[in-house]
């Protein structure tokens, strides 16, 4: 590629290389308190995510569904017994770097990359505080990120021993290519309930005017 590209300047790499890995490579030094985080949250986050991180309006809830036991085991019990109606962020996230990195790069949603490093530490701390992971006086910093991560309710909740990362991985199921008399007991076990028929609008208007088929009328049309 003779003549193409040029060496990046240190300032350029700094401007864009903002990612933070689970081993905290990339994490800028700094700190932020739960107290300060609450201010940030109420001013800049609560409108979308709810005062308690519970809102289901703009996105699924950030906080909820975890217990003190989960913090001890690092496994969220409600993921197993299905006792929580929805999976919140804190029920899933195994790595604190992930939260820090994502808030730093993407939040607030309509003004990403507008937070200071201190504000990112602080609001991350406040989310953990709302989830009962840290206390009200907690100050999150680069020195205690690892220790705090060790309290995440679902930190032990991931497995990577599956064959689905690479196309060359081994599949987890093996169907047989049966060609006749395969499933004598097969029957319909689920279908759209009648009340939901119109939930996706008038399907007639979502199919072509010609062709082998027409769309089914699912919404009564004016004048018909």
């Amino acid at each position, binding site marked *: *590629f003779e003549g193409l*590209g040029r*060496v*990046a300047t240190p300032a*350029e*790499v700094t401007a*864009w*290389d903002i*990612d933070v*890995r*689970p*081993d905290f490579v990339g994490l800028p030094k700094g700190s932020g308190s739960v107290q300060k985080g609450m201010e940030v949250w109420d001013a800049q986050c609560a409108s979308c995510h709810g005062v308690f991180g519970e809102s*289901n309006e*703009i*996105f699924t809830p950030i906080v909820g569904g975890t217990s003190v036991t989960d913090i001890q085991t690092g*496994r969220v019990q409600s*993921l*197993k*017994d299905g006792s929580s109606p929805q999976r919140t962020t804190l029920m*899933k996230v195994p790595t604190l770097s*992930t939260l820090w990195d994502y808030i730093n*790069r*993407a939040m607030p*949603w309509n003004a*990403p990359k507008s937070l200071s490093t201190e504000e990112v530490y602080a609001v991350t701390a406040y989310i953990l505080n709302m989830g009962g992971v840290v206390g009200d006086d907690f100050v999150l910093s680069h020195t205690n990120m690892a220790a705090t991560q060790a309290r995440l309710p679902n930190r032990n*909740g*991931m*497995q*990577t021993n*599956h064959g*689905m*990362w*690479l*196309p*060359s991985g081994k599949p987890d*199921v093996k*169907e*047989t*290519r049966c060609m*006749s*008399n*395969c*499933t004598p007991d097969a*029957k*319909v*076990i*689920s*279908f*759209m309930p009648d009340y939901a028929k119109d939930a*996706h609008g008038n*399907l007639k208007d*979502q*199919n*072509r005017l*010609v*062709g*082998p*088929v*027409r769309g*089914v009328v699912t919404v009564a049309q004016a004048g018909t």
Partner: protein
Amino acid sequence: ASTPGMAISQSTAKGDPAILNLPLHSKGLGQPVATMPYGLPSQYEKNLQRRESPGLTRVGGSSVSFCPFQGLFGIITPSGLHFERHHQGWWDIDPTQHRLMINGLVKKEMVFTVDELMRMESVSRVHFIECGANSGMEWANVAVPTVQYTHGMLSCSEFTGVPLIKVLEFCGVDLKKGRFVLAEGADGSSMTRTIPMELIESGEVLLAYGQNGEMLRPENGYPLRLVVPGVQGVSWVKYLRRIEVGDKPYGTKDEAIHYIDLMPDGLHRQYTSVQECKSVITTPSGGQQLLSPGFYNITGLAWSGRGKITAVDVSTDGGRNWKTAKLQGPVHDKSLTRFNLPWVWDGKSEVLLQSRAVDSTAYVQPSYRTLRDKRGDKSIYHNNAIQSWRVDAAGEVHNVHVG
């Protein structure tokens, strides 16, 4: 069993008025060339649109619009109907101001303009892209009525670009230590995903700017996106601004909070990426009405993130018996593949249509029963189960699960 409003030719004794009375276009002068310097579909095709699934997401900037496969042909997806999935909205970026940075475990950290990337040796390849959450609403139950919503987070294009490995080599990549790459976009979320170096070494991962002969569409990452054949769409980072070579995975938001698959034991599978072998009948499909008894072409699409499609079987009795369909048209690696099977509907029987694909690794697309036995029904992602459509006695087609 026939439907009102269908357009079979209404012959009077003398004949069809559409023939006997010459249409205006046979008796007049049409529009000049280049009336549309960039052309559009017929006004009669407006029903085929990208659509959201009501209630699925809460806000349009973090949502999905589905591709209308109920009315598409062949394997190429028209770029105007390519499915969309945005996490922080889409942009139309000035390509003269866009840059790609390569950093991390390379001898020279470098910056490239779009001009420079487009001067490099390129390749063009046809690949499908499927969101890991495609068919995700249907893990437990039937939830949506048509193939647009069951399978429409899927598209297939001819992509043109530069194999990423060539650019990394040009920067002096350390392939011994650098076993992972972080791909980062320039959108609000600066979307990030980890790509294992094996994939890049295969030469298949592209820095792509071309899609179906022209530049990528803004909704698909104009002017630069990563193409990661076989892997779920979220890894095909749009508005690509940076590639970092590292020695560990990055645990980004969309690999530690989403795109993780919940198993029955309460553990999530992390870094599930490959889109396994799958297929769906697109005609006839849910929400459609057969016009009358007689001949039909059962047609659909098959694809596999692990290789080529080698066979597709079709059942009309809910999986009891199967016939092998014809693979019509081009068969490419990690590409949509069109299948067809002739079929006669007697105009009165109930029918349960299914398709089952086989890929070049001999993997056979699983039934819901097989898949749920292993994974339960809460994993959201990577649902590649056999789809069933019930044709009722009146010729109306319904989305159903068979078990």
